[in-house]
């Protein structure tokens, strides 16, 4: 104890980590005091997750020193990290989908009774943990059956189950909506009051402002500065992260929407049978869809993109009724989707930037006999890399090695190259840094001006309010209301999102 007042609970000193092709961390340092919530922010690829993985014993640093309560430690395995009572919620989901919720929460730390797993204890403890994160599912539910958002809550419950001194959360809210987020923030504050130290990584500066005692900023794998409690303001953080200030974040100009581009009437989706959805999006209009996790938004977009077949109802583009049996049909009809699950659905990680951008256009640009049109592919990828300002050494770089934000830009790029009439965006800024975010918002605005009809799902209320001309709110597969720009407030959205219909809509 006497030691811990002299030296911080956790200190990272001049850590360097290299990967083939990149130096993820270059001589970075940070400290964490007992019972402190430290926010770690930085652009995509700044090295936040890498440092956290090092602290969790998943990766070893190439250089540098790590101390716990002043004592030098070598965190060469997850076990040693756990022995030092350090726990990490990874940025990507890390669950075994074939096991039930309880099994995942206690994976690797199962309570044992007479040599066998004590399933009773697991169930009991899980119920308590799930309650704490506000997830209303049985511990016996198979994880595969949960939508991403709920799986994220399971991850958090698992981290809580470790009796940790240092709890690291790497973008825990990236797939949570307002409601769950608020609950999570409560949990974190509660942990702090119990003397647990938390490292909190997020691109959502609002959360950071509300939560952090201190902020450490990384830029390009190096320290870019610290902010103490009273210095924490939106602009200061952006300043340090991006190195420039980003004026007028949501660049919305009012403009006249054109004719109806997308008309949906009586649409019934397989995951939410019995609910008929009807709405329309005009050319040049940006319509947001808000709602809680599992409200059916992704499901809706999947049907509009032909991934899942509609059970009933009609979809028409520019007045033409279209039958969407596959994404191919949707693309034909001028619809494009930037999917929710970037790594699984958006890009092919092992392939080059150029190849990914070219993929949807291959058919359209093919030469006679089905031969590749390399020239067109090169032209498109070059144009998109420039227009999106995708940060990559060259068009042949494998997408895997780009940061999250730049990967997302690649996904956008591959669709813009198709010049769609209707652009569907599912959580377009999930896990994306402030700079990239602003670029994407600017892009949406630009497209709208060009007359593209944009329908975008977001769990980040701030951006829904900031970006949309109109907002549809969904609750358990139904559209519970529609809010115009001047009706839009967090309250009005929450009202509808939690199913309280009856407020003016």
């Amino acid at each position, binding site marked *: 104890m006497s030691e811990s007042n002299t030296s911080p609970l956790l200190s990272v000193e001049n850590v360097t980590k290299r990967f083939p092709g990149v130096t993820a961390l270059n001589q970075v340092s940070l400290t964490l005091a007992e019972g402190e919530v430290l926010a770690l922010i930085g652009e995509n690829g700044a090295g936040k997750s890498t440092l956290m993985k090092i602290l*969790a014993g*998943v990766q070893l640093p190439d250089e540098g020193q790590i101390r716990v309560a002043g004592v030098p430690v070598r965190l060469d*395995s*997850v*076990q040693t990290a*756990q022995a030092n009572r350090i726990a*990490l919620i*990874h940025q990507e989901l*890390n*669950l*075994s*989908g*074939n*096991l039930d919720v309880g*099994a995942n929460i206690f*994976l*690797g*730390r*199962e309570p*044992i009774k007479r*040599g*066998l*797993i004590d399933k009773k204890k697991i169930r009991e403890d899980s119920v308590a943990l799930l309650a704490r994160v506000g997830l209303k599912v049985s511990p016996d539910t198979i994880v595969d059956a949960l939508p991403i958002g709920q799986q994220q809550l399971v991850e958090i419950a698992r981290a809580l189950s470790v009796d940790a001194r240092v709890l690291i959360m790497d973008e825990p809210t990236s797939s949570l909506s307002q409601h769950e987020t608020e609950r999570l923030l409560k949990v974190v504050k509660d942990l702090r009051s119990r003397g647990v130290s938390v490292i909190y990584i997020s691109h959502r500066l609002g959360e950071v402002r509300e939560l952090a005692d201190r902020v450490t900023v990384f830029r390009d794998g190096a320290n870019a500065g610290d902010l103490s409690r009273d210095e924490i303001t939106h602009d200061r953080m952006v300043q340090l992260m991006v190195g420039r200030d980003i004026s007028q974040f949501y660049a919305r100009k009012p403009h006249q929407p054109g004719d109806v581009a997308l008309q949906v009437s009586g649409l019934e989706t*397989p*995951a*939410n*049978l*019995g*609910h008929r959805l009807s709405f329309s999006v005009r050319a040049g209009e940006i319509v947001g869809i808000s709602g809680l996790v599992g409200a059916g938004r992704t499901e809706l977009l999947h049907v509009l993109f032909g991934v899942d077949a509609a059970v009933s109802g009609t979809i028409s583009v520019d007045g033409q009724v279209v039958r969407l049996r596959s994404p191919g049909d949707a693309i034909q009809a001028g619809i494009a989707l930037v999917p929710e699950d970037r790594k699984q659905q958006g890009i092919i990680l092992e392939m080059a930037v150029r190849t990914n951008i070219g993929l949807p256009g291959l058919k359209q640009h093919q030469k006679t006999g089905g031969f590749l049109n390399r020239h067109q592919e090169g032209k498109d990828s070059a144009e998109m890399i420039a227009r999106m300002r995708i940060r990559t050494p060259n068009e042949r770089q494998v997408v895997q090695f780009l940061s999250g934000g730049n990967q997302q830009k690649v996904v956008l790029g591959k669709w813009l190259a198709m010049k769609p009439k209707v652009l569907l965006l599912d959580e377009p800024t999930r896990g994306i840094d402030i700079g990239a975010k602003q670029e994407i918002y600017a892009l949406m605005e630009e497209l709208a001006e060009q007359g593209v009809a944009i329908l975008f799902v977001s769990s980040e209320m701030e951006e829904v309010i900031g970006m949309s001309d109109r907002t549809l709110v969904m609750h*358990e*597969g139904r559209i519970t209301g529609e809010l115009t720009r001047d009706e839009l407030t967090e309250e009005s959205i929450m009202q509808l999102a939690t199913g309280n219909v009856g407020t003016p809509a």
Partner: protein
Amino acid sequence: MKKNLGILSILLVVFMATAFGSDSFFTPYNLFNLVERSSLYGIIGIGVAFVIITSGIDLSIGSLIGLVAVVFPYIVVDRQLSLGMGLLTILGLSLVVGIVHGLLITKLKLQPFVVTLCGLMIYRGLARWLVSDRTMGYGNESFASLKVLVGNVSQLPGCASLPGAKHVPVAFLILVSLGIVAAVFLNKTIYGRYLLALGRNEQAARFSGINTTKMIVLAYVICSLISGLGGLLFALDYGSIQPDSFGNFYELYAIAAAVLGGCSLRGGEGSVFGIILGAALMRLLMNSISMLGIDDQLEPTVIGFVILIGVVVDQLVKRIAAHRRAVLQARQASS
């Protein structure tokens, strides 16, 4: 249990049909043979299930069985060493094979299919070379003491008087005990849970502090050890070993049994009971084919078809269940 309903019903249907179609089928003698064969194949099925659960595969089982079956009499008869020495050798052999497979797959990140495909060739060649293709026999009296393993229960010390013991193959006892141990291991111990977890998502398991390398090696060791045991039993049962062919294709039978029994080759799933049913079904089919006097050239075709039907049914059942769930949800939501 529930997930094995599909195959269980197929098994029963075929059983009934054969019992109905041939009066020699439902006789103690035939049933004894049937149960014994099913037990032998069930045993190696359980073995391969462990690697399948880790989303791996082992194609070398048949060759390892051949090698073990050759090495054992080679040690005991040709080299004149003791029975214990022989047992120790094949035990060590299986152990080493399993460890090597496991290390190549985890440390060198080689693909299980490739590693064990090489194993399939390597062990076969070794078996043939060791005895230069001579047929090996188990007639030698030194094996007499082991023969009980492929006899009936009444031959076990002190079981002579048990009622019906004569009608129960010892191999069946071995299968049952092995099955129970395996089932408990998989479903009730942390190691089983680790295997299931890493089988689906190795990174998640590793990030949870599980030593996935050790667990995967363990899985291959278990598989090889059980294959070794299987090799011994098969050899004792058939008594005559052709080094160049003994055990050919057994890996496919074992894998088929596991798949029929509900193991997914994508890993993370597996029911010991199902595997035993799977092995039994295949042996039953072969038996039915001769009992019903079906053209035995068609035998592979029939088996292939039934396995296919088995997995298709399984698939459809899953889908229907999923659909029903969705509808149910919808009703709850709307109500």
